[in-house]
């Protein structure tokens, strides 16, 4: 109401000014006065396994949240595209598994848990590294192998860590028992925290995942197992790898839900539901996020030998997570094209600055080579490539 009065009084004050100024004033007055503060959106119902009820089929989104989700997802999108560019320029080398297309998963999960909760994922990890709090410049500098990288250039794409974020793991499936172990620690310490443990459709057939399911269920660990099903394990489609593609049911005795992973609100509601379930001491839960990656498996995979360009294009036009959010916000007057464009420009600057940093930051010093072998130990000697080279290692 207050804002409406300001708007009206502005218009009357400027009534005699030139048409252009008046129009401009009205537009900028709109940018903070006229937007819908929040709206409720119907979301796709989740398929349920061994659950009587699932998450709500309606999600409340405030303008603030919408802008935050948009900003985060767009940042991840732009960051991954920048990584693609740097890789093609050979400034990034080795493994680089890009996350563009799957942003709603990382954002939705982060929106539904607390910063004090825990998360672990596999190698397609840049998006989660960002949502768990690492700056874009530290991520890109890690990819370019510089000393300003989040792991000082010693980890690379698949080995980035942060508080309550346990990477980034290179061995397919190994992160799942690790995540169950983090959940065990949460239970042991009685801190009411949960661990989100992610794996892909390719990893879903790993034996150690079923071993983790068993122990998590036996001991009622507060572990949310999440399968990010992007339809392909490297170049192998789910139909060719899995006798059962109902990944949300693979936990068998563990309840599961299947979620639209392209809708950030769907993901958020589902993870809230799952986290409540775990915190109530009911044990683990399995979630399948149906999602899609635009890039191939990694930068060495064009991604079109095992799927069609048409399929990729179709997802981009009909199902893109960022476009979906944008459309929701615009059509409900929760933001404007101009405001979102502003945000895009800000993000572009952040990414450009980060890329500049990642290119210009020096590589790690050779003194770093042998450090971090052991923690909290006195300095020791490490053999070099030949017996006369004795290198120093500090913790």
């Amino acid at each position, binding site marked *: 109401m207050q804002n409406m009065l300001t708007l009206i009084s502005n218009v009357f004050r400027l009534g005699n000014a030139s048409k252009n100024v008046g129009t401009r004033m009205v537009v900028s007055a709109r940018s903070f006065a006229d937007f819908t503060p929040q709206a409720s959106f119907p979301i796709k119902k989740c398929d349920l396994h061994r659950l009587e009820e699932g998450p709500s089929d309606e999600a409340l989104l405030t303008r603030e949240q919408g802008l935050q989700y948009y900003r985060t997802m767009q940042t991840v999108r732009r960051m991954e595209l920048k990584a693609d560019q740097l890789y093609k320029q050979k400034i990034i080398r080795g493994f680089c598994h890009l996350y563009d297309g799957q942003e709603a998963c990382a954002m939705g999960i982060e929106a539904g848990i607390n910063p004090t909760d825990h998360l672990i994922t596999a190698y397609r990890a840049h998006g989660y590294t960002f949502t768990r709090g690492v700056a874009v410049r530290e991520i890109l500098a890690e990819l370019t192998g510089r000393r300003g990288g989040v792991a000082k250039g010693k980890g690379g794409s698949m080995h980035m860590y*942060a508080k309550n974020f346990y*990477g980034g793991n290179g061995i397919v499936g190994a992160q799942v028992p690790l995540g169950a*172990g983090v959940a065990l620690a949460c239970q042991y310490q009685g801190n009411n925290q949960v661990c989100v443990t992610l794996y892909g459709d390719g990893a879903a057939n790993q034996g150690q995942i079923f071993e983790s399911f068993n122990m998590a269920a036996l001991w009622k660990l507060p572990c949310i197992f999440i399968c990010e099903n992007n339809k392909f394990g490297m170049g192998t489609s789910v139909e060719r790898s899995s006798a059962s593609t109902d990944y949300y049911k693979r936990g068998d005795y563990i309840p599961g839900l299947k979620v639209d992973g392209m809708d950030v609100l769907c993901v958020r509601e589902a993870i809230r539901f799952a986290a409540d379930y775990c915190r109530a001491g009911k044990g683990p839960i399995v979630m399948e996020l149906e999602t899609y990656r635009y890039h191939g498996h990694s930068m060495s995979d064009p991604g079109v030998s095992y799927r069609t360009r048409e399929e990729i294009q179709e997802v981009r036009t009909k199902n893109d997570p960022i476009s979906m959010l944008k459309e929701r916000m615009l059509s409900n007057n929760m933001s404007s094209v101009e405001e979102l464009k502003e945000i895009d420009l800000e993000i572009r600057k952040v990414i450009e600055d980060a890329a500049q940093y990642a290119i210009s930051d020096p590589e790690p010093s050779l003194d770093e080579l042998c450090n971090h*072998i*052991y*923690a909290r130990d006195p300095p020791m000697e490490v053999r070099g490539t030949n017996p006369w080279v004795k290198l120093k290692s500090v913790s």
Partner: protein
Amino acid sequence: MASLRSFLRSGKNAVSVVLRREFSETSPAAVQVNVRDALNQAMDEELERDERVFLLGEEVAQYDGAYKVSRGLWKKYGDKRIIDTPITEMGFAGIAVGAAFAGLRPICEFMTWNFSMQAIDQVINSAAKTYYMSAGFQTVPIVFRGPNGSSAGVAAQHSQCFAAWYGHCPGLKVVSPWNSEDARGLLKAAIRDDNPVVFLENEMMYGVPFELSEEMMHKDFVIPIGKAKVERQGTHITLVSHSRCVGFCLDAAAVLAKEGVECEVVNLRTIRPLDVDTIEASVMKTGNLVTVEGGWPQYGVGAEICARIMEGPAFNYLDAPAVRVTGVDIPMPYAKILEDHSVPQIKDIIFSVKKVLNM
């Protein structure tokens, strides 16, 4: 008050000083403790000392341990801290490592180290390498322990020695105790260490008693990881060994002493990091070296020791090439006569010493 302050400041090194002052009037009250009980008491004391420490593995709780090493611990500490796992090594080893990531201090028991091969990815890729990959951000304070090497009549799949396999990998500490003092002091050190430690026990040593002094029975008695011990002084030849074979070396040394050959016996205690300095000092004194181990010869612990001696100052002091006594290069057979001839015996050590000394 001043002594208390200086004690607290200097930490565990000061323990023996304090004890000497307190107990110098009384005669040391030594006790006979077998290796099993030494391990049990070490775990008990560390569980009591730090509530983040817990034990998990197959049969560790209600069964009291497959080899009874964890006897009584479940009764005392309960389900939360002594956890029976299903027979899923890869899963529970990974869970243990994850718990270590998140701030606990797990002891993960493998019923024997042979079964660790199911989980070796978690030991190497998830535990050993993480501190380095994270550039010092993520510590992994975990102990993996269990019986290693040959037993009696358990045949090929249950008799392998993994000292060389794990000793190969940077980021791990690998420890191989021989007697009760080693078992107690090294296990305490391993549990208190903030790094992943592979703790290689020996099933045949579990029931063997050794004398432990009062100092060794103190609850803060730790043996530094990475330091070998000279168990017997000698002048003519150095015998370097680990685990059960240390005992064989001492027995061989006793026999050889009657013939005027004085062997210096070095107990490695730690496989990685290897205490090359102690070995070199011994070889520079005696001029001759024989390594003794239960594992296979190729790419083994003895091979590493010989290579290091070649590359270092001690080479110039060698009067003869260094030689290895090892297990026979075959999968372990079952029949007793075959098994007995698959592992180094005292006569093999004596034979090798005489060959090296050209006797």
